[in-house]
């Protein structure tokens, strides 16, 4: 630990936190669950990266941990899209197939030791009760490294959503997403941390006074609770929201621990971070419990222009782009951090090529600049992000 006073009760705990955080940045790696040619680029027939197998995901998770990043996100989508060219003739390579992100997260969880794992799941498709229990379970399997990336807008087909309803409007989706997240958070709090008492004297396994109905009654649904799963190790697993519209921004500010911005260049990034901080403060979110990251597409390969074109980069929603030798790339990240952003989610455009540069040379350059840890020194994702263990909103003690 760089800070030698962490065990001493300081009268200024938040200042100490800010000082230590000002040096390090938060880093995340976005892994996308889609199979297809993209995953084989540069290494034709390399079965290590067949994303429909556990083996590929174990390899990717191991690489992310080698890179000492705070967390990985596992993307998801409910469309079957054509894969970029370059794959085999096999139908699974021609079309971007993918597995469920939560199942992937739980599959890799027992063999990782330190990295946070944040799968994407849709608020429109999932039952809040089941989703809360699955993410809590991920948090148990990882012993406190679990999270959830919100997907608000997915409506793949009529009736595929929870409750077999017709697809709602985008406005309704956002309203319902807010209710969904509220229910999930309440359910995570519905057991006090010490609800399991195993009291032999009274034959009681739990203390019912420490377990609470959540009694959510919203515009479109209600949930009684409590959860069937005791409070997860982090109390509240980390909720991540990537912001791609005003509606998502409002939702993210209201509910997320980690908000991920998209900005095309440094100036836009600065503007957006400033605006986001102001909005957060207006929304009663103090700076010490929200983290703002920016998405960065990472393309180190010599053919990165063609890769980016194939993968849709250069559209209106494009993110910061990181190319060039790792030392220059590290300088650019440190420069972008001057905007006040807390860190970056790195999206390797090609796997394994760009990913291995991120977790190898780029990580080393970032460590040299003092913005990336030299070793994992926290056991939970909240700990890595500098977020405290929140008390349950229902706890009586």
């Amino acid at each position: 630990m760089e800070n030698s006073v962490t065990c001493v009760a300081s009268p200024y705990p938040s200042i100490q936190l800010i000082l230590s955080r000002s040096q390090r940045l938060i880093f995340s790696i976005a892994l996308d669950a889609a199979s297809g040619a993209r995953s084989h680029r540069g290494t034709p027939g390399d079965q290590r990266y067949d994303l429909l197998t556990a083996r590929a995901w174990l390899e990717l998770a191991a690489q992310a941990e080698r890179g000492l990043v705070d967390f990985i996100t596992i993307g998801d989508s409910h469309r079957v899209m054509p894969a970029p060219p370059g794959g085999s003739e096999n139908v699974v390579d021609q079309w971007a197939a993918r597995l469920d992100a939560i199942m992937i997260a739980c599959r890799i969880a027992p063999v990782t030791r330190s990295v946070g794992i944040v799968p994407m799941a849709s608020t429109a498709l999932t039952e809040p009760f089941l989703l809360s229990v699955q993410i809590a379970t991920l948090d148990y399997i990882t012993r406190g490294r679990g999270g959830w990336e919100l997907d608000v807008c997915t409506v793949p087909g009529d009736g595929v959503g929870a409750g077999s309803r017709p697809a709602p409007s985008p406005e309704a989706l956002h309203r319902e997403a807010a209710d969904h997240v509220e229910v999930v958070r309440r359910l995570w709090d519905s057991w006090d941390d010490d609800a399991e008492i195993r009291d032999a004297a009274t034959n009681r396994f739990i203390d019912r006074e420490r377990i609470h109905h959540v009694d959510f009654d919203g515009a479109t649904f209600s949930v009684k609770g409590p959860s069937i799963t005791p409070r997860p190790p982090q109390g509240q697993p980390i909720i991540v929201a990537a912001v791609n519209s005003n509606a998502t921004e409002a939702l993210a500010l209201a509910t997320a621990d980690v908000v991920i911005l998209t900005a095309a260049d440094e100036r836009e990034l600065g503007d957006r971070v400033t605006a986001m901080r102001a909005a957060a403060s207006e929304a009663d979110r103090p700076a010490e419990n929200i983290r703002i990251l920016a998405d960065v597409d990472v393309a180190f390969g010599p053919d990165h222009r063609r890769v980016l074109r194939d993968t849709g980069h250069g559209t209106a929603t494009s993110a910061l782009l990181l190319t060039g030798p790792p030392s220059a790339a590290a300088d650019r990240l440190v420069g972008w951090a001057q905007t006040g952003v807390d860190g970056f989610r790195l999206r390797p455009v090609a796997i394994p090529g760009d990913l291995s540069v991120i977790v190898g040379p780029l990580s080393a350059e970032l460590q040299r600049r003092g913005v990336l840890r030299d070793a994992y020194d926290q056991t939970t994702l909240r700990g890595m992000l500098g977020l405290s263990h929140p008390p349950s909103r229902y706890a009586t003690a």
Partner: protein
Amino acid sequence: VTAPPAKQIHLAAHFPGVNNTTVWSDPQAGSHIDFASFERLARTAERARFDFLFLAEGLRMREHAGRLHELDVAGRPDGLAVLAGLASVTDRLGLMATITTTYHEPYELARQLASLDHLSGGRAGWNLVTSSDPFTGANFRRGPYLPYEKRYERAEQFIAAANAMWDSWAAPDDGPGATTGRPRCDDHRDLSAINGCRRPGAFAFSGTQVQIAGEFTVPGPPQGHPVMFQAGDSDAGREFAARHADGIFSRHGQLDDGLRFYADVKRRLAGYGRRPEDLVIMPGATFVIGDTDAEALELAAEVRRRQVSGPHATMFIEQLWNRDLSAYDPDGPLPDIDPDVDSDARAEGSAQARTLQREAIETAARWRRRAEVGNLSIRELVIEMTARQSFVGSPETIAATLNAYVQADACDGFILIPHITPGGLDRFADEVVPRLQERGVFRSEYEASTLREHLGLSCSAERAICPI
């Protein structure tokens, strides 16, 4: 003349449940929620070459008289999430979770099960149950919506929808799984071709309970369809199992009862063009092992006393009496007042309670007579009345009895329910399994890699072809 080869026994390990079978007060009892406990039981089951690990499901905390039930183990993680984790720490063991088709949605469930099947190399299974109680529905967006008599209608359509998704990457001529008659798109880069051909993953199902259409991103699971067990016991449930299920988690663990159930269900298979070996029947079974039969009997009595504490006994008879009986000493005689049959059920979420109420007054009278004859206290009566362990004895006795049941066609194997988490299967694995192996009725090494193969099932009831 050589004797026909002995039937092979199938064994599964049930993670100890959220009920009073599980003894949490034992010094050996560990966490019921930490992943390490699940890993420990799974590793023991795999070391013993079991067919699969089995997880139960409960989607609402049990309540008694409007308050949370405190006496038993409570709280559990999500079944499929735990199984995905267990796929990382096991290689061959099948992984089965109980799922209600009433409160899960077909798309999410089919996608997660198919994903688990890929991520475990073909070891995924599910135990389909149905429910209709509004008590559980209060935790879900849809709320209580399904009348009791419609629960199998929804289950049927749930399965049909799941099958359409699991088969949605199959070529049109692959058999019954194909979702439309249109040819599959070959040139995927021409998006205008969407209307002229079927993209992989496109699916649609429309019924009275389930109407869905969309794209399924998961290509055909390694097992074709994950193995499906079923647990319903009504006539409709048995018919449903005979038509759709690969196996039954049965409650008929006694010999006579098991023989009748086995014959009844296997007879029904022919009506759906299925052979007797296309469905395995595995009752849940508890066990207590001692060095000798006498020691096992003593241990079993002690386990029963731990399972039925004084407060447990009071709660149990409150379910029948439907009254607050906390004023009665559990070590004293039964209440002399009659059950209240007019108010709502005291024990929400308990099927046992609902059954009990139907004939409450006659039952109470019968219990009182029995207590008087045997001079039993409330607690002693409850210990005698409620299920005792299925198999009690030395390792040799238990191995011989299990084998006798299977060879007599009372079942095809057992889903074993230890009463201690997570070490409760250790002695069975170390001392009973070798005796079954010596008899040549249980595998010494895994011969296959998928759950479907472990169970000797060639392909699913729904699919004419097998993918492997």
